[in-house]
């Protein structure tokens, strides 16, 4: 069994190469991305934790099966996020899930709000956060997805392009439209920071 310390100084790409020789190394990669990907799946799908965990398992199995398709010219994190994105979309397209209230950290919402409303600080009451979260969840998936990747996951345009498999120009347009759409909703509800 591979222990975490054996992977600590290794890059994702190095661990991919090692995994192809010894599958136990795959545990290191999964541990690195387990929490991040679960949160990402929860946020874009707005589903229950159990369903999201099932999707994450599917993501890890798919990624393992397609490990030889991973191109070292790309970042592993973008590659696995891309698999997570596609698997989540197809999983929840197949079975219509009932929306759940997935909790977000306040700082994640702050990041989106700061960018959308172009302000330095965003500090709101708990009730308002809940209300804004509802608004974000009501945005079309393509908008919600780019907002999450940009302002919650902290990905840059090139990374989002590699995850969503869209040109960078399209990513920039989607982010602008998403911000505009959210801003309109906030103004309609008269929410100011």
């Amino acid at each position, binding site marked *: 069994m591979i222990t975490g310390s054996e992977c600590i100084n290794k890059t994702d790409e190095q661990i991919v190469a090692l995994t*192809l020789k010894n*599958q*136990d190394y*795959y*545990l290191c990669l*999964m*541990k690195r991305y*387990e929490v991040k990907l*679960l949160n990402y799946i929860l946020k874009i799908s707005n589903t229950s*934790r159990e369903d999201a*965990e099932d999707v*994450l*398992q599917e993501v*890890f*199995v798919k990624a*393992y*099966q*397609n*490990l*030889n*398709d991973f*191109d070292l010219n790309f970042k592993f994190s973008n590659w696995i996020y891309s698999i997570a994105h596609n698997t989540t979309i197809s999983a929840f397209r197949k079975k219509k899930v009932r929306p759940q209230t997935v909790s977000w950290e306040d700082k994640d919402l702050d990041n989106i709000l700061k960018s959308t409303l172009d302000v330095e600080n965003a500090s709101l009451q708990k009730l308002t956060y809940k209300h804004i979260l509802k608004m974000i969840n009501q945005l079309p998936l393509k908008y919600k997805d780019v907002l999450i990747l940009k302002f919650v996951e902290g990905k840059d345009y090139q990374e989002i*392009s590699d995850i969503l*498999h*869209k*040109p*960078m*120009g*399209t990513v920039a347009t989607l982010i602008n439209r998403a911000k505009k759409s959210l801003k309109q909703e906030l103004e309609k509800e008269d929410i100011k920071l």
Partner: protein
Amino acid sequence: MKNISNEVLKKIKDNNIKPKPRWYFITKNYFIWLIFGISIILGSFAFSMILFIIKQLDWDIYHYIGESFLKTVFISLPYLWLIFLILFIGVAYYNFIHTKRGYRFKFISILLISLIISVTLGTVLYSNGLSENLGNIFFEKIPYYNRLVYTCEKQWMRPERGLLAGTIIEIGLPENSFILRDLDNNRWKIEASKVIWKGKITPATGLKIKLIGKLINDNNFKAMEIRPWQQGQRRFIMEGNR
């Protein structure tokens, strides 16, 4: 939270799940590029056929028959090959975006690149006479092909609109008249006393021509302008010889 990572590793081991081999992905990638290449080449063929059909038509005769230029264009466009061109460009686009880095390019860029390659290659194929040969083969071998494209034959075999085409079979009649066998094998007496001969030709038997004029009755036609067959109308030359 469940220990997902350990569960997945156990599942991989228990079910003996293995990564798909590298050659599978390499083959898949090459296949996508191959289909892209084939689509571009077929698109080039389609474009060369469009060029061939457009070039063999006469675009200056619309005012002789009282039609607008737009109507002439609308009637004459080679829709069949345009549909094929769009289809092949579409298949090329679909395959390109499924290559490793294809998604990084904008829709319009991929479309333009595919179109430019097809147009360039198609022009080369047309210049080498390939579209002419293919066109002739299609006319002869493919049933109903001639119904699907607007040809020079359709354009010129409209005596009621003052357009006629065929081969001179007899000359030396009074008042510069001559006998013509049209593309449908009908005999016509052509009155050519005040005719303008274009393209430095003189009447001779076996000469293939196009006539602009006026229908007098079932077998008489008064010619006002006569043109020679041009390059790229070989099919009619062959038919005219029959």
